[in-house]
């Protein structure tokens, strides 16, 4: 079983959901990326999603777009991503790393070469936002050859039949998109997310992580009780450092505190069960 599979297995037996923060690699420099990942790991992140910036991120809202622009304009390259992952591993952080990107940077490097390199530096999975199951065979093969999981997306508009097909091919976990739209922090969990999680849990037992719009503990508890095995938080974290005028140390402290809170909300299942037991 992959490290990601084992992570979800262990969380399930301890009655927790996975906390999966998204970090835009190279935003504020790769030095900051490493520090941020270290902070998040310390705060209890179970898996890290590391974004490889792309110039034309059409599934992302303004927050992640701006982060990608900042990273790319400071000279970030695909090699910088691999170097950053190496440094994270050298730092002794062993959490599974999912690289989230768009397909073109992968195609440019060569799908096989990309997967080989990612595996070599210690990455665990790849998620290409604009690669639906119809087009993903080449990546599936290359990822499989290199022991990487391919994380697939499902959306509120994905039919049951299609969701069954996607989940049937799933490795690691499936990423459920909470809304029909783009990434960006929101305050509450939309109804579309709750009904999607319900549908997916009836279709398959593959772990499902919910993302797009996650920013607070209330949403996390709602997601977990609606059947999610984990949550992905991206834009909200980026907002915390990009909109702050505080020094780096204070910002990282704030992020750590916030992320501990999010992580604690993923323990809602066990809390709920404990409460039931008490009653």
């Amino acid at each position, binding site marked *: 079983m992959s490290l990601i599979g084992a992570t979800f297995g262990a969380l399930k037996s301890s009655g927790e959901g996975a906390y999966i923060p998204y970090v835009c690699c190279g935003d504020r420099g790769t030095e900051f990326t490493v520090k941020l990942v270290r902070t998040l790991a310390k705060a209890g992140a179970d898996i890290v999603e590391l974004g490889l910036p*792309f*110039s*034309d*991120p*059409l*599934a992302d*809202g*303004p927050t992640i*777009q701006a982060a990608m*622009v900042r990273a*790319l304009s400071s000279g970030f*390259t*695909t090699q910088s991503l691999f170097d950053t992952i190496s440094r994270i591993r050298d730092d002794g952080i062993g959490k599974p790393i999912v690289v989230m990107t*768009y*397909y*073109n*940077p*992968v*195609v*440019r*490097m060569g799908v096989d070469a990309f997967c080989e390199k990612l595996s070599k530096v210690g990455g665990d999975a790849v998620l290409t*936002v*604009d*690669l*639906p199951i*119809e*087009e993903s065979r080449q990546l599936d093969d290359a990822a499989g050859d290199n022991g990487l999981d391919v994380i*697939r*997306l*499902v*959306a509120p*508009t*994905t*039919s049951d039949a*299609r969701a069954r097909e*996607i989940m049937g091919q799933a490795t690691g976990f499936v990423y459920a*998109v909470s*809304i*029909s*739209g*783009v990434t960006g922090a929101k305050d509450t969990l939309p109804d579309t997310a709750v009904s999607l999680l319900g549908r997916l849990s009836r279709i398959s037992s593959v772990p499902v992580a919910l993302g797009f719009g996650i920013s607070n503990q209330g949403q996390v508890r709602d997601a977990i009780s609606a059947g999610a095995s984990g949550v992905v938080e991206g834009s909200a974290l980026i907002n915390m450092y990009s909109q702050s005028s505080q020094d780096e140390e204070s910002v990282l402290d704030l992020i750590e505190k916030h992320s501990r809170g999010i992580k604690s909300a993923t323990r809602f299942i066990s809390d709920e069960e404990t409460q039931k037991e008490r009653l």
Partner: protein
Amino acid sequence: MTADGYFGRFGGFYVPEVLVFALKELQAGYRRFSQDSDFKDDLHNLLCTYAGRPTPLYFAKRLTDVVGGASIYLKREDLAHTGSHKINNALGQALLAKRMGKSRVIAETGAGQHGVATATACALLGLDCEVYMGETDVERQKLNCYRMNLLGAKVNVVRSGSRTLKDSINEAMRDYASTSDHTHYLIGSVVGPHPYPTMVRDFQSVIGAEAKEQTLAQTGRLPDALVACVGGGSNSIGLFHPFAEDKEVQMFGAEAAGEGIETGRHSASVVAGREGVLHGSRTLILQDDDGQISETASVAAGLDYPAVGPEHAFLSGIGRAKYSAVTDREAVSAFHQLSEAEGIIPALESAHAMHLATIVARDLGSEKALVVCLSGRGDKDVDQIARLEGML
């Protein structure tokens, strides 16, 4: 082409999962209505009574004499309603959107011609219309912006990325991801995921179908060559496609060399691009070694796009069509040449085709004939040219 929207290895369906449902619905809708005789009759009727089709095929005798070579025929898409070939596709897709029960249409636009055509079709059919236009393009095409407003459309100024056509497509896709239940995304070129490259080509093929009939009627034979400009490549594919099986007819595409290929400030994706995936298609793209999309340049806003329709990548690969790049300077010179020789002011996009046509005409020599797609009229560019030449 295969059923999956592939042209050889180009094309395909590279989209986020949030767009899959809407695009499959569109594929099914297009499959259904493209074979529906009522739909085809309605569209044909609109093209004839509203859009001014068929557009003339005009023998440019004075230009032919000046150039000295093959006879140059102009397919006068500039005389279509709204001033360019864009109306052919806009009417087709707007009619389709209406049949599919959509109440709102969104579009991207570069030069503004597609935005104006879409706003026009929406006004005609009673559909809400919003057009995404890059801030850079809004500045150089102010008049088209105002025209869209006059037609009742809302123009959303795009300030992300390079603020040109590619960024407008990104924004329109983001809008579509959250609104596709009631919105149709009316893409203006033969780019994007399946079914767009096929559907837009089919709606634009009226250009080539008419040109074929008209050349036969006027000269008694097929032309020896076809010439058209290529940004995303809709007017060119529209002209080329009906001649695909006529192997004796050569095809030439004029891309934008901007300030020169060697300067890196151009938009010539077939000539200088590399294979990749952008906006839903595998095609030829101007990009760096890491697969980041390059910023492009051209005096013609409508050609200022870092990729090309996948069918052009395919036609280039198999050698069926030849692509070369025309600089800003050459295009501006052709703009003047046609204005003076024939009393026709071409769009700057079409001026790229006019320049290439003069070269092809000389190469072919007299006794031969070629058809150039004069894709749009140049009124929108007069202000820009006047400023460029210090007249304003």
